[in-house]
């Protein structure tokens, strides 16, 4: 039995919205088709977390953001995400639903790299986007939230790396929900053609402690044969934003997808990070760190599914829970029949900082092939008193010792983020959330 939620956005609205953005016909049709499906599809059912009453439908759908002519004019809390020492060559700042600042190195443009907001990409590279948009990775009709996403998508990025192009410098995006009631229904599409490589890092940020809204994020990463994509993210929506984040990767032969996700939202969050290792010898390393505090409820799924022979998947989830926060960490390593010589490893650990917090680590291995290797480690517990003793025996106070251990516990993602400023900012967020 599902509760009927009628959206304030109907066919007419969606048609006009699409027209206003001068979207191609296929996109308008995809939206309308998705809108229709969203009415009959049910919400997803994340394991052990009931999201039926969460807010996924009340928000402001379209809010323009002022453009910025110089990065010096950004508020300090947004400047924090940027490496000040270095000139920003490859950066998009999305303010509410429009681009406030965008730049891409001319050299990369000349090589055929596309890095632009989704609205522009749809106008200028419509056919290319159409080939991948909700085709290979995420599908419109998976559940109500994917359908709602497709119908109402109002922001995001298209990053396209042509064959054999290796991008050395990281590509950075900042999604700034400035309006406290604006919803980010963001679509990130990263396509790395054969033997290309790219490092991308994104920040989500909002400041709405009280005002309610929702974010519905779908990310698709397509790594063609021999391509390598390193994907970093720090999510830091404030408590008023209910978040659905779906980040999915598809790796073809010899391709590599690396995820480093700092999931630092303050509000209720459902997050899934799924990678399909389609091609032989494809590889994925999916790392997530998360902190829960207050009465926050969160559900994290990391899933690597092996189809290709000799594919290699490694999942790491580390969570810190305090106050009365609840979080479920599902780690799923799935090896399909035929994916021989594959390896599925995972590690899920939850550190509890208060007795009222709740954290579950659910490691799951689903294996339909004999000739494989797999392993998992899971633990839920408090800060190890022997580790504390060791650090304190060097004169370090209990507070400082605990702080070192917690930062260390969350280091696997911090370490992997490509931009120094983003690392530093995540460290500050961790510091703020834990103390």
């Amino acid at each position, binding site marked *: 039995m599902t509760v009927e939620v009628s959206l304030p956005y109907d066919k007419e609205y969606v048609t006009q919205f699409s027209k206003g953005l001068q979207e191609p016909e296929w996109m308008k049709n995809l939206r309308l088709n998705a809108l229709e499906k969203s009415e009959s599809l049910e919400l997803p059912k994340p394991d052990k977390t009931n999201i039926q009453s969460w807010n996924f439908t009340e928000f402001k759908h379209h809010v323009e953001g002022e453009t910025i002519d110089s990065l010096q004019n950004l508020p300090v809390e947004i400047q924090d995400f940027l490496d000040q020492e270095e000139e920003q060559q490859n950066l998009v700042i999305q303010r509410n639903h429009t681009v406030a600042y965008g730049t891409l190195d001319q050299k990369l443009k000349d090589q055929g790299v596309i890095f632009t907001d989704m609205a522009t990409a749809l106008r200028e590279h419509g056919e290319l986007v159409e080939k991948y948009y909700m085709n290979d990775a995420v599908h419109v009709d998976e559940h109500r939230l994917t359908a709602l996403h497709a119908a109402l998508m109002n922001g995001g990025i298209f990053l396209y790396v042509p064959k054999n192009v290796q991008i050395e410098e990281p590509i950075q995006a900042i999604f700034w929900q400035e309006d406290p009631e604006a919803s980010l229904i963001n679509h990130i599409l990263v396509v790395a053609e054969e033997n290309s490589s790219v490092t991308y890092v994104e920040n989500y940020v909002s400041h709405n402690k009280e005002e309610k809204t929702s974010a519905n994020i779908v990310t698709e990463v397509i790594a063609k044969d021999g391509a390598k994509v390193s994907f970093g993210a720090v999510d830091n929506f404030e408590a008023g934003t209910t978040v659905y984040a779906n980040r999915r990767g598809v790796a073809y032969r010899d391709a590599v997808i690396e995820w480093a996700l700092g999931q630092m939202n303050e509000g209720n969050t459902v997050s899934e990070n799924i990678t399909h290792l389609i091609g032989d010898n494809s590889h994925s390393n999916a790392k997530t760190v998360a902190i829960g505090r207050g009465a926050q409820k969160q559900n994290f799924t990391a899933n690597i599914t092996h189809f290709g022979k000799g594919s290699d998947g490694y999942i790491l989830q580390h969570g810190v829970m305090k106050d009365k926060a609840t979080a479920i960490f599902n780690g799923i390593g799935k090896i399909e029949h035929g994916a021989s010589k594959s390896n599925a490893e995972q590690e899920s650990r939850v550190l509890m900082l208060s007795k009222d917090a709740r954290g579950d680590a659910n490691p799951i291995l689903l294996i339909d092939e004999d000739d494989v290797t797999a392993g998992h480690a899971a633990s839920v517990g408090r800060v*190890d*008193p*022997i*580790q504390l*003793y*060791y*650090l*304190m*025996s*060097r*004169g*370090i*106070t*209990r507070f*400082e*010792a605990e702080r*070192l*251990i917690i*930062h*260390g*516990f*969350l*280091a*696997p993602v911090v*370490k992997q983020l490509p931009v120094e400023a983003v690392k530093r900012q995540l460290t500050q967020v961790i510091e703020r959330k834990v103390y």
Partner: protein
Amino acid sequence: MAGSTLEIKDLHVEIEGQEILKGVNLTINGGEFHAVMGPNGTGKSTLASAIMGHPKFEVTQGEVLLDGENVLEMEVDERAQAGLFLAMQYPSEISGVTNSDFLRSAINAHREEGDEISLMKFIKEMDSKMDTLEMDKNMAQRYLNEGFSGGEKKRNEILQLMMIQPAIAILDEIDSGLDIDALKVVSKGINEMRNDNFGCLIITHYQRLLNYITPDKVHVMMQGRVVKSGGPELAQRLEEEGYEWIKEELGIEDETVGQEA
């Protein structure tokens, strides 16, 4: 008199309700190196852990005084700040915390706020001490003890000792698992510490460490007590004759304490 004094008086210690130390008395002054020897299971490591404040050990009787202050009333970090140091037999591995960040926190914990060691000075000191201990420079950036070999862990304990410069150090079986070359290197580091302001309690059950570090006094532990004390010649005799003669002399049949039969 230079240096600090550590006095252990009638120390009784239990673990999980079982008494391991049954009245230990020892005094270590600045400038002195003491060796505590004895077969396995006689309470040597318990003595080290109880002085530092290991959470599993409970002191039921007695005192440990550092310059007259009862350290048993202090938190573990306060004991360290008061001047105690324990090189552990099994140092913890702490993932995600680099050796260098940890060491800097430890050094700054011994300094006043606002008087933190400068990064340059810290790196210089660490580099020179790592050279003395023949440690690979990349160990500074590795996570604290994570994946370190037994020998690397021991060197890392001595590196901390040399950087922190405590008043009194206890070295708990710092020689176990070391090959002869590593033993020489570690001993060199410890000998460099020797001065009037530094006292050291070396716990070992092999005499061979004492070939490289000459103790001023040697104590033998059995059944949770110090049963015999003497000079360096006592260690020499133990090396040649073992512990049996002491057991005979004192009428001890089973020297161990708190071991399941």
